[in-house]
């Protein structure tokens, strides 16, 4: 920089613009609000830990007790079955709804309409009482002779009735989620697949669904977490899932609050695990969506640490 160039008064003192120092804005109000919230949270945690009404000793006794762990397992099974079966059935219904056949799409529409209209609890009680309606389920020619028949309650069982109820309910919602995902896929993708002669089912499985997953997963994650907690309504059928067992125990010993905490803690832990799983599944289906995929939290933490130490 030569000395005879015109220099502005404000910058005269600095030779190299790179030396100019940036002073970030100070956010005093943000700091004050942050401090106030920290104090409130600390108070709340302190109260939670020290107030005797929570009865943490009771919580400790029960949280890993055999009955509760068993009940958690039942909750997980109900969730897993209803998720897998619900989304399988939902995917079929979604493609029926999208199909060019007016019969298929009307049937699918009707299914969704009915099962979204019935409250889940009503449906569950209905399935539970199925034997009152159909005492025997038979296998045979439609409207014709029956070859094999079984008592419907022994065939289905209580858990089976719960799984059927949860599945049918879930499928109606899953169908709409899947349909939304499929509609979000660019039409050119199907056209390219068709132009290449890729078989129809393969087009759906290999080209459409993986791309639809990007739109399906966030909502599906919500649904599955909702289902995990929603399984608690099957307590009306006296199935030994988490919420039912907790009620049984506090019905006996009267320790309502700590036992509700036991249930809460398990639901929080399971939901957190599902959220983590969702994050990684979403990453898996984001492949190719961005030029450079974002780092995982672990990678980000590692990079942060290594950068700090060098």
């Amino acid at each position, binding site marked *: 920089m030569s000395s005879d160039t015109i220099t502005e008064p404000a910058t005269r003192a600095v030779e190299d613009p790179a030396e100019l120092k940036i002073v970030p804005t100070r956010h005093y109000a943000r700091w004050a609000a942050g401090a106030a919230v920290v104090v409130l949270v600390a108070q709340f945690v302190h109260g939670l830990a020290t107030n005797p009404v929570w009865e943490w000793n009771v919580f400790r006794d029960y949280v890993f007790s055999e009955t509760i762990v068993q009940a958690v397992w039942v909750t997980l099974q109900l969730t897993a079955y209803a998720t897998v079966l619900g989304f399988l059935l939902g995917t079929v219904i979604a493609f029926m709804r999208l199909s060019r056949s007016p019969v298929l799409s009307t049937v699918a529409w009707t299914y969704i309409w009915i099962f979204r209209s019935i409250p889940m609890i009503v449906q569950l009680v209905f399935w539970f009482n199925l034997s009152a309606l159909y005492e025997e389920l038979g296998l045979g020619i439609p409207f014709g002779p029956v070859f094999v028949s079984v008592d419907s309650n022994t065939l289905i069982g209580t858990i089976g009735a719960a799984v059927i109820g949860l599945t049918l309910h879930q499928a109606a919602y899953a169908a709409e989620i899947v349909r939304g995902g499929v509609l979000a896929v660019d039409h050119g993708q199907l056209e*390219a697949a068709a132009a290449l002669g890729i078989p129809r089912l393969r087009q759906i499985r290999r080209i459409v669904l993986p791309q639809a997953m990007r739109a399906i997963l966030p909502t599906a994650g919500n649904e599955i977490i909702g289902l995990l907690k929603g399984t608690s309504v099957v307590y009306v059928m006296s199935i030994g899932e988490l919420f039912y067992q907790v009620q049984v125990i506090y019905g006996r010993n009267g320790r309502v609050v700590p036992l509700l905490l036991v249930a809460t803690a398990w639901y929080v832990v399971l939901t957190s695990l599902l959220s983590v799983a969702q994050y990684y599944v979403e990453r898996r289906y984001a492949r190719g969506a961005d030029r450079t995929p974002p780092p995982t939290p672990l990678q980000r933490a590692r990079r942060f640490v290594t950068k700090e130490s060098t």
Partner: protein
Amino acid sequence: MSAVMVDVHGVHKSFGALEVLRGVDLEVRAGEVTVILGPSGSGKSTLLRTINHLEKVNAGWISIDGELVGYRRSGDKLHELKEKDVLKQRTNIGFVFQNFNLFPHLTVLENLVEAPVSALRRPRNEAEDTARRLLERVGLADKAAAYPRQLSGGQQQRVAIARALALEPKVLLFDEPTSALDPELVGEVLDVIKDLASTGTTMIVVTHEIGFAREVADTVVFMDDGVVVEQGPPAAVLDAPQHERTRAFLSKVL
């Protein structure tokens, strides 16, 4: 003279009340390059899409290498083929889209391997070898593991061409293959198509690149308003057009 590879005969196509193709006849001989020119909305894309049966025709017929597309003839009746059989026929007809339509969630190699494996039941390793050879041919041997969105537009279109070639089709259809590209990327795609022309690939190319038509085409076809207005060697159609509509169009694009 070589045999007729693509035969379009009296094809009519309407969308509702709008008649988009109003009796199109076209013959493309094996190993020849036909370039279709015409104003926007004249029915060029629709014609290409009827050739690989992405659109059904309302009247007329199309055959590839003597085989009717989308129909089976018995006596004086045309029976519509099942979707499965139409898909089978399409493996003979490569199609390159204006906006590439690569599968973004699959790598470049997977894009090329998918159809040969699933539609032609080729063994995967064999299909991969072919795919790598084709990528080399379009100058993208080093991009096999990349995802389409990591490539430039020109590279994506070259992958799309390689993907169409992977099925070893009898004819390649291009629908404005360079219209979605930045001007400096047009050349690399046209070079690949020229290379294919020089090795005797039968092609129908819809494009607005008059220079390319002049250099590569055996036949130039001018379409307007759903009909073929005139066709012939590039020198005739481009330099001495017989019809007023052709002259008007050329004066706008040249």
